[in-house]
């Protein structure tokens, strides 16, 4: 099998992932898109490894590490996204707007838009 | 590529896949019945009800197959297939006898087998999710949790064997087998077999389908042929796990006259283990979901790690 097939496939996968990250609103889907990108990388690595006949199999070794770290990453990421989801009832990325450049001069930008759960008011009472 | 050879092998595997689980199922009917002081099915087919499961199959095929309103229809339909096919695929990699009596020797056999096994359990999970039934979902999640908890000891125990043999190929492992591996890997065998049992959600690890709590778990909404396929998958799983345990830990085809009768030894060992699986169902009460988790993380995983350490030390010392 020529190298072109896996290479092109992996590039396509990667592009799909990039598109997903850029176009998706839901944090979980963004996360999945990132994983897709990583999968593309793995595919590329293995393909190159086999193609080049690398005697120390750097490509495959890297893929192993890649898998492990992708798992760790997804674990950490999901944890954070879940936290946000639990408090906001949404994991839409584009609704995370409490931190952003503002025009106004409101003295306290800390308060996000008051969500249905009144999250904003809660956080100030955590003393 | 020799197409004929390949065709024969595939066919053989398919036949084994269709026959062996039925045998195990029948065995379960009868053995369990006798252990409980019953006689079990007696009518279908005449002699001790030998065709009971065939009859069951016919009945299932004729039953109406409903899909609940809220279900994710496509996924719902696919789930039995997902549960079943991996076991078939696994079978091809399990060596039956010496000198190439195997469907197909796969390089990283252990890897392949364990990976495929993991996929099988996904069938339950997606069935539970697609049903849009809260009991089914609960069952599916329990399945998932169980899968995750027991996959690790399974892997670690298998790794121990791989360490001992220095290869990942199943035939390779058997080639390297020595009789004293049985006591050497005893703990690993226990871990592997138990974990396999749990992966299959067989009693006493059947909390995910505990009928008294959550109806039938992930399979609640299934009926007819689809349900039958799930059942088939379960028994195929028993065969596969038993066979794998036999191959990895009990020497597979090794035994007297193994040159000629190797395949028999493998089948025999597998059969005995299948019987143990059935026995366990009768002998032990069901564990609670939390007990299942705890057992995995606090007993099996440490045991497996210990086994690996032990294997490593022995291997380095003797090698």
């Amino acid at each position: 099998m020529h190298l072109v097939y896996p290479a092109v496939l992996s590039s396509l996968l990667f592009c799909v992932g990039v598109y997903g990250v850029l176009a998706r609103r839901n944090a979980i889907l963004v996360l999945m898109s990132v994983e897709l990108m990583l999968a593309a990388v793995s595919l590329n690595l293995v393909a190159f490894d086999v193609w080049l006949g690398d005697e120390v199999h750097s490509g495959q070794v890297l893929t192993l590490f890649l898998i492990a770290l992708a798992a760790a990453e997804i674990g950490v990421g999901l944890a954070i996204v879940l936290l946000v989801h639990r408090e906001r009832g949404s994991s839409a990325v584009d609704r995370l707007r409490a931190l952003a450049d503002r025009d106004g001069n409101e003295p306290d930008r800390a308060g996000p838009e008051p969500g249905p759960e009144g999250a904003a008011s809660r956080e100030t009472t955590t003393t | 590529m020799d197409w004929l050879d390949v065709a024969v092998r595939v066919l053989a595997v398919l036949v084994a896949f269709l026959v062996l689980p039925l045998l195990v199922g029948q065995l379960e009917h009868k053995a369990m019945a006798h252990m409980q002081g019953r006689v079990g099915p007696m009518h279908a087919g005449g002699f001790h009800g030998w065709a009971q499961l065939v009859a069951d199959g016919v009945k299932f095929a004729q039953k109406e197959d409903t899909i609940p309103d809220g279900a994710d229809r496509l996924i719902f339909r696919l789930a039995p297939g997902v549960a079943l096919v991996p076991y078939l695929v696994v079978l091809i990699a399990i060596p039956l006898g010496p000198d190439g009596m195997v469907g197909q020797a796969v390089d990283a056999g252990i890897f392949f087998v364990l990976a495929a096994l993991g996929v099988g359990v996904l069938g339950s999970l997606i069935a539970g999710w697609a049903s849009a039934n809260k009991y089914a979902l609960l069952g599916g999640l329990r399945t998932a949790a169980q899968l995750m908890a027991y996959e690790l000891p399974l892997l670690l125990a298998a790794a121990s064997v791989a360490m001992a043999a220095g290869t990942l190929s199943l035939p390779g492992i058997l080639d390297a087998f020595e009789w004293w591996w049985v006591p050497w890997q005893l703990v690993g065998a226990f871990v592997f077999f138990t974990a396999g049992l749990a992966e299959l959600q067989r009693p006493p690890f059947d909390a995910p389908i505990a009928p008294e709590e959550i109806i039938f778990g992930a399979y609640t909404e299934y009926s007819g042929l689809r349900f039958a396929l799930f059942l088939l998958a379960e028994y195929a799983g028993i065969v596969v796990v038993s066979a794998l345990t036999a191959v990895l830990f009990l020497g597979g085809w090794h035994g007297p006259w193994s040159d000629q009768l190797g395949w028999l030894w493998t089948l025999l060992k597998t059969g005995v283990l299948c019987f143990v699986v059935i026995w366990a169902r009768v002998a032990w009460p069901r564990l609670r979901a939390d007990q299942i988790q705890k057992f995995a993380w606090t007993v099996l995983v440490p045991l497996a790690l210990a086994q690996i350490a032990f294997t490593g030390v022995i291997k380095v010392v003797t090698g």
Partner: protein
Amino acid sequence: MPDYFHGYTVVGLVAVVGVLFVAFAFLAGRLLRPSVPTPEKLMVYECGVDPVGEGWAHTQVRYYIYAFLYVIFAVDAVFLFPWATVFAADGFGAATLVEMFVFLGFLSVGLLYAWRKGVLTWT
């Protein structure tokens, strides 16, 4: 390389056969079985009473923690296998073993931490 792919070709063939088998079974089932759907039949089954609440109910976050544990450990266990095949080869020996024990030690520490944090106890 041909060998490499050959093995998996057969495996793929078996998988195809399996899929065909399932498809065939479904097809046969469709021909054999009756189909008389009624609203009651299509209702979610909850032991015969009318269903309460939604099908996709919220579930405990605990499952996530197990998932997390699994992902970390199982994926790390992947490193064991390549190592397992070579650790006893010439020139490796004890040092390699010790290094892997260090790796396993890391895993154990993680497990211990999870255990002590009460993650493994169902509440």
